[in-house]
């Protein structure tokens, strides 16, 4: 789907572009989540995914008070020994079998290539892994058979997981200090906050820190006029250094030799290895290879981000029950990123080498990109503002009727821009850089250079982007209630934005909602039911819609440079084709809910929702004859319905002891009502819709009549005597798993959704005196998950990748995979999507355990003025377990990881 999948975040009355991470949790007074129809109608189109309303703490009249918090968190580094990787022996055996196969070339042949010259190097030997190098050296007589076997034994005995942790990882540390100062009198209230967050990540040389300052002021200027001013300032600095991804490293690659000197690794070395290094020494060029231990210190990226936010609101009481308020917010965010790769780094050297012309009879060695470091500067800025005028009316008539209404208008604008620039031959000490002949770089042929590669793409180095979004809206919301028992709500909103070239029929389409609520507990007949403290029934219905900005009934083109000639030519490239069939994305919402409190201590809500989205916009493959595929179309209509139940209960509630349980349950069912194309039906087409097409369409999200993200799988039936995978066909017979035996949808089982349909959260809190204990567990069920197939061709294979069929009889080995030939010819698509790898995804996690003790009773603390002094210990992301054979829980984030890495936090929370 297009657009932002995130809910709208409203802070202190205005929507914000900042993410939840940027909001200091110590500042939050209340969080309200609006999910129903009313939400969108008040906040507009951006609220179609729900609204999170956050109100921050305000000053309290009285003497000035302070709150100070300090927390320290630890997170241990990843232990790759515990991952599902194959052992070094398994990985080297896979490679060795492959290279020793009789069908592979005699390495003797490559001996002649050792004297390769420019442009003739052989990728195959140069980028060789350790296994192949041993075989090559033996074939060239540098090792005897016994010596080679010895070397192989040594190689298989070493696993670089421990060294990886030693050189590249560390315990992550998070420190936070927060100070609040607040107070005021009956005319002035203030709230000041200062917050420092320091982050040392698990990856070495990667750190960050953030400072947040906030000041909020509420002033009563006169009995009728009040003024509110909120200012926020955030300053972030991040330092990023490159750490190699462990999946790109062979299990036997070492990072340093026995003297501690850095060693190069294959990945990132541009296919250059030991042999072509001889070319370098012949021509005195840079070492092209990547040394991770050097790279992590020689390439630094520094990001500095500064955010400012100012909100001002003026409220004037015209007369009782009628207020007008004028206000607005202005937000800016500026980011500067500076990436400096010194002359010692592979990042800088490889660019130089790619454009170094070797000497010929008539020309000397020419460096088209000057030797030295490489500097990239990136800058991006975002500014947005909202200005609002609102009238609000509150009146009670004849003591039973009450009417609350607001009407307002809003103007909003948002600008983002970014730019990039690159410098070569740069040295950070001298601050000097050298000129580059870009025109020559783009047109010079790649032959004659030291290391062949693609020509320079200037867009990677220099770029400007800009976007400007503007909106004007008007809205109205009214609540009428009778006798405090029955109320009726209505809201309407019109948004207009700067979609250029929009068809007038798309303008001024209103969003609206209506709702009814009944406070049943106020009814006469329920007054006698003493056990019901609160019972409110609510019903609402609303309409929301969205128009795509990115596709129109006319062609949208973007400016580009056609640089196939030495002199570039201005051009317009197509950005989006004309689609006269585009319609509004519309959502109809219906909710029924019950809020209750019974027996004074048990409260909860039960909600049922039914949401129908028609003409959902998304990018889809369409008929290639139409000229532009994939493209944005109204691709589906979806129905989403479900239940949400929350329960909150204070089982024991006395002065000394408190026990509270919270339960949140949700169950969701989605169904695709219409999908743009591909309605699987046997025999309806010539040729019929293949099972592969169905599986792919399901992965894209929409099959008519099925839940969104439905998964289909083939029925795996083992391996046959020639190493091919087998499957059960629609009649239960075993056939070879191959597209020729396709029966369309009959070849597949419907496995249900890939997104959890049921989630349960359970939390418990026990307070005894000054001590409390808290625990939270989550459960996710009703979905399937796909595990990856161990691939023997992977650089760092998954355990079991070497267990594939090699000879007759192997099909009986448990867990055996098909032969390598089969995987190559038949396309492993069917095997990857079979029930061998698609399994039940249900899992639960223990999210949080907290223990806390409040020391406020201690004498010396009371004398010092502390009203509260709490010491808290917390462990989060503690544990997970999945209910499938492989214990693959998506909570770990990665199939390879079997466990959760917890974070341990200790904190001190004080008030004085």
């Amino acid at each position, binding site marked *: 789907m297009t657009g932002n999948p995130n809910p709208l975040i409203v802070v202190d009355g205005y929507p914000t572009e900042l993410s939840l991470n940027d909001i200091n949790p110590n500042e939050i007074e209340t969080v309200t989540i609006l999910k129903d129809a009313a939400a969108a109608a008040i906040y507009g189109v951006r609220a179609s995914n729900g609204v999170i309303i956050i109100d921050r703490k305000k000053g309290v009249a009285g003497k000035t008070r302070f709150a100070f918090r300090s927390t320290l968190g630890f997170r241990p580094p990843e232990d790759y020994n515990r991952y599902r990787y194959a052992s070094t022996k398994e990985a080297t055996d896979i490679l060795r079998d492959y290279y020793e196969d009789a*069908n592979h*070339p005699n390495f003797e042949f490559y001996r002649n290539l050792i004297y390769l010259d420019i*442009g*003739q190097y*052989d*990728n*195959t030997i140069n980028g060789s892994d350790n296994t192949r190098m041993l075989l090559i050296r033996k074939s060239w007589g540098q090792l005897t058979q016994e010596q080679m076997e010895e070397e192989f034994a040594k190689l298989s005995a070493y696993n670089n997981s421990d060294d990886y942790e030693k050189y590249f990882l560390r315990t992550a540390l998070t420190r936070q200090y927060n100070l609040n100062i607040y107070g005021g009198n009956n005319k002035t209230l203030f709230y000041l906050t200062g917050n420092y967050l320091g982050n040392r990540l698990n990856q070495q040389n990667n750190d960050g820190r953030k400072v947040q300052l906030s000041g909020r002021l509420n002033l009563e200027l006169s009995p009728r006029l009040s003024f509110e001013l909120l200012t926020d300032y955030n300053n972030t600095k991040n330092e990023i250094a490159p750490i190699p991804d462990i999946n790109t490293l062979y299990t036997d690659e070492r990072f340093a030799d026995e003297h501690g000197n850095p060693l190069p690794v294959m990945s990132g070395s541009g296919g250059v290895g030991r042999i072509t290094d001889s070319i370098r020494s012949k021509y005195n060029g840079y070492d092209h290879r990547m040394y991770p231990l050097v790279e992590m210190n020689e390439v630094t990226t520094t990001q500095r981000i500064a955010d400012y936010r100012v909100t001002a609101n003026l409220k004037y009481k015209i007369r009782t029950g009628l207020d007008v308020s004028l206000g607005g917010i202005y937000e800016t965010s500026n980011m500067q990123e500076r990436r400096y790769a010194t002359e010692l780094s592979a990042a800088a050297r490889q660019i130089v080498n790619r454009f170094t012309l070797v000497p010929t009879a008539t020309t000397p060695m020419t460096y088209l990109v000057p030797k030295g470091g490489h500097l990239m500067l990136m800058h991006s800025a975002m500014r947005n503002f909202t200005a609002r*005028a609102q*009238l609000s009316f509150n009146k009670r008539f004849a003591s039973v009727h009450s009417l609350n209404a607001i009407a307002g208008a809003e*103007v909003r604008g948002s600008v983002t821009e970014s730019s990039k620039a690159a410098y070569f031959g740069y040295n950070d000490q001298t601050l000097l850089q050298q000129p580059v002949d870009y025109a020559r770089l783009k047109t010079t*042929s790649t*032959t*004659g250079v030291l290391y062949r590669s*693609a020509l320079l793409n200037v867009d990677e180095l220099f770029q400007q982007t*800009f976007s*400007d979004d*503007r909106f*004007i809206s008007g809205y109205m919301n009214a609540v009428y209630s009778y006798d405090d028992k029955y109320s009726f709500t209505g809201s309407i909103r019109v948004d*207009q*934005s*700067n979609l*250029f070239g929009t068809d007038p029929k798309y303008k001024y389409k209103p969003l609206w909602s209506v709702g009814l609520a009944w406070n049943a507990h106020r009814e006469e007949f329920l007054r006698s039911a003493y056990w019901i403290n609160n019972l409110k029934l609510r019903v609402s219905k609303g309409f929301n819609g969205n128009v795509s900005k990115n596709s*129109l*009934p*006319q*062609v*949208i*083109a*973007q*400016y580009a440079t*056609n640089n196939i000639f030495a002199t570039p030519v*201005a*051009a*317009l*490239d*197509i*950005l989006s*084709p*004309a*689609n006269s069939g585009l319609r509004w994305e519309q959502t109809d919402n219906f909710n029924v809910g019950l809020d209750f409190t019974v027996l004074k201590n048990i409260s909860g809500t039960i909600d049922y929702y039914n949401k129908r989205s028609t003409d959902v916009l998304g990018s889809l493959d369409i*008929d*290639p*004859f*139409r*000229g*532009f*595929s*994939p493209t944005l179309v109204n691709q589906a209509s979806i129905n989403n319905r479900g239940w949400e139940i929350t329960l909150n209960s204070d089982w024991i509630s006395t002065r000394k002891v408190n026990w509270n349980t919270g339960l949140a349950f949700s169950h969701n069912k989605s169904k695709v009502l219409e999908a743009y*194309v*591909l309605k699987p039906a046997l025999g309806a*087409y*010539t*040729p019929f*819709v*293949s099972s*592969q*097409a169905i599986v792919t369409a399901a992965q894209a999200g929409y099959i008519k009549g099925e839940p969104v993200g439905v998964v289909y799988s083939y029925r795996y039936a083992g391996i046959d005597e020639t190493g091919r995978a087998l499957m059960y066909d629609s009649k239960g017979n075993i056939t070879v798993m191959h*597209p020729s035996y396709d029966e369309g949808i009959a070849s597949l089982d419907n496995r249900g959704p890939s997104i959890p349909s049921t989630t349960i959260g359970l939390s418990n809190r026990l307070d005894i005196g000054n001590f409390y204990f808290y625990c939270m567990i989550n459960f996710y069920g009703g979905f399937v998950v796909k595990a990856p197939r161990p691939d023997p061709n992977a650089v760092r294979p998954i355990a079991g990748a070497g267990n594939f069929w090699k000879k007759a009889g192997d099909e009986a080995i448990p867990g055996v995979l098909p032969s*390598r030939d089969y995987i*190559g010819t038949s396309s492993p698509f069917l095997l990857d999507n079979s029930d061998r790898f698609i399994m039940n995804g249900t899992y639960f996690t223990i999210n949080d355990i907290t223990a806390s003790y409040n020391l406020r009773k201690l004498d010396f603390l009371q004398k010092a003025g502390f009203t509260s002094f709490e010491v808290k210990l917390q462990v989060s992301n503690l544990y997970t377990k999945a209910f499938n054979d492989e214990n693959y829980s998506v909570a770990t984030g990665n199939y390879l990881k079997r466990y959760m890495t917890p974070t341990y936090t200790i904190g001190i929370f004080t008030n004085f």
Partner: protein
Amino acid sequence: MKYKSNYLTWPALLFCLLLASCDKYLDVVPKGKTLLTNVSDFELWMNSKVTYEISGIPQICWMTDHAQKLPWDPAFIGENERAYLWAEQFTEPNYPPQMLAGAYRHIYLYNTVINNIDAAAGGTPEQKASLKAEALLARANEYFYLVNLYGKPYDAATAATDPAVPFVTASDIHVATPPRMSVQGVYDQIIADINDALPHLPEDNSDNRFRGSKHAAYSVLARIYFYMRNYSEAAAYAELALQRPGGAEVTDYNGLVKNFFPRDTRINEMIFARGSDPNSGTSVAIGDSAFIKSYPSTDLRPALYYYDGPYYPFNYNTIKPSAGVRFGALSYDVQVGTTVAEMKLILAEYAVRNDDVETALQHLNEIRIKRFAPADYQPLSSTDPEEVFEWVIRERRHEMPFNGLRWFDMRRLDSENRMPEIKRYDREGNVLATLPPHSVRYTLQIPVNALIYNPDMDQNP
């Protein structure tokens, strides 16, 4: 009450003012993108790199007898390998089919101009007519490729009923795809379109050979008639094409450095230039060893067209690496457009088919003199039309081995019963596939993933 009306009017006034400046505030032009409203926009549109490309050339080359996939590795079968074996369906089932989708993508770009240029602002009627003419020419060129891939080889007796491809003229993706047009219908339409375009095309495209011109149109017409086997019309248009302002000189390959083919030098020989779409892959086609050996040993072309080096790292056991064609880091180095040499070869073939051996030899020698060092050059001489015909075909193969035309030539010659059976072998010498004369595989099937969206469309056998 006076008081009441006062405090209501002010907000109301503000509101009205707001609405009035509404449209103005929202009428901001975005940076970096635009709708196509002016004639100048369409001029820039015709400069888009995408319009300079033909898609699917590497795959077409794999289908010819110039390609040889050795060593054959059964563990790595993809689209190119299936095309090499003339499989009924060779495109990946889950992606838009390269050749077809690429051609129709280009057609979409040209249709956008053809349909919307008349309503564009600014610019003179001549400019509009000229841009429309260029788009008509480029579109006709695309349909030329399509009809020769998905329609049977042209046979005047059956062309009116042989299905080819849908002739799409819409630039709105919401418009339904028309049914397949007949081979005759497509040819008639593209010839008519080019004839409509001719009076309005620019005289000269020497500053940008990728754009249209009158002579470019003549060269495309020459190709079209040539593959309809209407050799006299083809020759007439080839003659006209060679009268272009850029001259009728074939590039001299003497003095060019191995593997270093300066783009600008080559391009002057182009009459209507087109490059190979980089999305079709810059993967290398490997030259058939027998074919490579058929070049005379002193011919300059192998050194410049072909590139030494092993390509399949693990899996072959020949001693010497095969030679292959480098499609280049920049696909525009592979020129598939019409060239002076191609026009001369058309003229040579027309001449020899009419037993005019002298004219044929003259054209052949004018090309060959630039393909050998002066010391090695031997002009061809003969009086036997059959022998000279063989030379013409051979020269065609040598001059344009991998620009896609060989496949079309194979079809054309097969219609005249001049193609032998072609076989594909694995590394043990076993036959993997054969292409017998008049095989239905000379006409490609419409890819399955295009037919899914057009269930009523007929499929080729």
